[in-house]
């Protein structure tokens, strides 16, 4: 693939307000109304959470799944910048963008979910080293800042040399320019520290998320309760990293009418088949060692959900093993999407479906407003992604038109 040097990332410069963007915006507005309701009437008004089910959809999807799927950020950074596989640089920027947006919205989702949103920074003052949640929170806070720092060069690159502030601010042009210049030279020198720190922080809190439920051995279903749950969370997040990149890149290139980047994506998932294999092996091995296969076919919701979750890993793994299926755009997309959904289901299983409080009078199912708020957050991520790639140099796939003009 090095025969054609990959073009540099550039803003797409397309029309922003398409019907799709309008739909996203509408969903965001709707969700926003529910968020207002939550701050007027309390969590009881918008959610089905109760004393038996203190964590619901927001923790399962917005936080746990959000963090897992943002793993594309650190896994691509690792392969391109640490392991020096420069051919993957084309996808590091979009993955970094997804991770930055993802973590930002994990924080927003958490702020909505915790009862005292205004008290969210308190763990910074009151350290509680025994608490897994404390560790996760600290890592997420620091990592989100690391992501912003990693993203900075993209912004600097966009505005360096063409700072043009409107009206009276024009006198500041020179200073802002010099500031960007300075930022650029500093960032260049220290970026490697942040790249590695990002990987380390990710490993810490991805596994930490898995430790969260270990404090409730009597509540989490034995199919999921295992001392190696942190390891499973870490390996599955790493395994989900590249499939998530494939998923979002394919969706983005298709909707922006760009070349499909298959020459980057197909080899990228070559690593995934090992990573996913490790995860599946751990998962099955753990089931064998703990003898939990006895629950596999008891027909309960938990057992069915577990089987679906496992199939959503094993089937795409076989698809990735086949060189032929892996090099076709459609099958690769299907395989990667299945993995992404499987990871989401796994997180929901651990935090929601497998969580069985012994005295619960009824089981938990998310309310319409909970779903609306989750949808609002997801749409906001997509909306901002679109905004970012339109105006910042993130995507580098050449447009289909330009390819038609001069076939390469």
């Amino acid at each position, binding site marked *: 693939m090095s025969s054609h040097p990959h073009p540099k990332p*550039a803003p797409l410069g397309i029309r922003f307000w398409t019907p799709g963007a309008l739909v996203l915006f509408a969903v965001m507005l709707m969700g926003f109304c529910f968020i207002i309701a939550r701050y007027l009437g309390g969590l009881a008004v918008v959610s089905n959470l109760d004393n038996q089910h203190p964590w619901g959809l927001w923790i399962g999807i917005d936080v746990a799944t959000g963090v897992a799927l943002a793993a594309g950020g650190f896994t691509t950074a690792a392969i391109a910048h640490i392991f*020096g596989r420069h051919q993957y640089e084309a996808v590091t920027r979009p993955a970094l963008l997804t991770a930055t947006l993802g973590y930002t919205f994990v924080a927003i989702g958490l702020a909505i979910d915790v009862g005292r949103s205004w008290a969210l920074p308190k763990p910074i003052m009151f350290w*509680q080293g025994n608490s897994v949640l404390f560790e996760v929170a600290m890592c997420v806070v620091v990592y989100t800042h690391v992501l912003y720092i990693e993203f900075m060069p993209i912004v600097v690159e966009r505005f360096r040399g063409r700072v043009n502030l409107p009206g009276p601010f024009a006198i500041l042009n020179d200073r802002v320019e010099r500031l960007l210049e300075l930022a650029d030279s500093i960032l260049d020198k220290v970026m490697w520290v942040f790249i590695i720190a990002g990987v380390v922080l990710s490993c810490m809190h991805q596994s930490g998320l898995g430790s969260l439920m270990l404090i409730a051995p009597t509540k989490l279903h034995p199919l999921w309760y295992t001392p190696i749950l942190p*390891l499973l969370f870490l390996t599955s997040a790493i395994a989900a990293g590249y499939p998530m990149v494939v998923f979002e890149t394919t969706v983005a290139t298709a909707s922006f009418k760009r070349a499909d980047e298959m020459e980057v994506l197909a080899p990228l998932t070559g690593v995934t088949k090992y990573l996913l294999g490790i995860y599946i092996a751990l998962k099955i091995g753990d089931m064998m060692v703990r003898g939990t296969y006895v629950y596999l076919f008891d027909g309960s919701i938990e057992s069915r959900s577990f089987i679906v979750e496992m199939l959503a890993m094993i089937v795409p793994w076989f698809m990735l093993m086949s060189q032929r299926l892996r090099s076709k755009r459609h099958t690769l997309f299907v395989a990667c999407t299945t993995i992404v959904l499987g990871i989401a289901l796994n997180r929901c299983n651990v935090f929601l479906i497998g969580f069985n409080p012994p005295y619960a009078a009824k089981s938990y199912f998310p309310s319409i407003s909970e779903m609306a708020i989750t949808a609002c957050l997801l749409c906001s991520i997509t909306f901002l992604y679109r905004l970012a790639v339109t105006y910042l140099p993130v995507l580098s796939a050449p447009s289909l038109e330009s390819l038609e003009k001069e076939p390469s």
Partner: protein
Amino acid sequence: MNISRRRFLGVAGAMITASAAGNPKHAFATRKPKAPPNPYGCVVDLTACVGCRTCEQACNRVNHLPPPKERLDDRTVLDQKRRPSTGAFTVINRYYSGRHDQQNQLVPTYVKVQCMHCQDPACASACITGALHKQENGAVTYDKSKCVGCRYCLVACPFQIPAYEYFDPLSPRVRKCTFCYDRISQDGRPGCAAACPMEAITFGNRKMLLEVTRRKIAANPMRYINKIYGEFEVGGTSWMYISKEPFEKLGFLTLPHYPMPHLTETIQHTIFSYMWAPITLFTILAGVMWKINPEQINHDPELHAQQPQHAQEEYV
């Protein structure tokens, strides 16, 4: 497989080992139990309780809660299997174990439910800021000025005790039995124990209570089964129960005898003692980067120039 990919997998292995270092078995030995040495306790004698709910009323009074919403003479609430809530830190439920008396009537057993004040509480270990805390005198207390409202304590509590003010939009609290911390700190008895007309709740030093209760059970083998619920459950609790009926038939959970925070705290402390695991991982990765991809660190302009430079068009 080329060299860097093999290296990649090798380092992936290192990451996994680092995160797996919290081997639970090894850790169980290293984490010391955290219980305060000489706490207070309470023993509830289920054979003495008649289900009058005076304790509910007393509890609401001493905790400045509105009086119980179910009237005291309404006996049907006893069968509703209520749980402690934001408006009631303790509730009485009625259970039938299936035993009949001489008149062939089912014999009811009344069970008082409140926070167990675990010796090594899951809620306090879980709490992200330490808002929940096990005091030296045995009470597990809550400090709303530290609470974030994450509700991890509700997730963690094996007895499902803490209740949350979901209806409060901005400053909801976690509510639960306080063991009447202020009263017992001033040599008083908990409100419920002092109010009970049947003297079913005995308050005192936990160690002494256990001795007295063991003797009581030994002296009355017809009246009690030989078990003190809470002596060992989740590492021991400050509130304990004795009964004639098997506890499983009275809504009590069968729980492990190790403290709930064992595994999580062990993993946390194994990985984060002196931050060795993150530092090691950082060092390994920096080494790999330095070896394989040095231009990232050095920013050698020549190396940089080799990278594809293409499509430099202006995009304004």
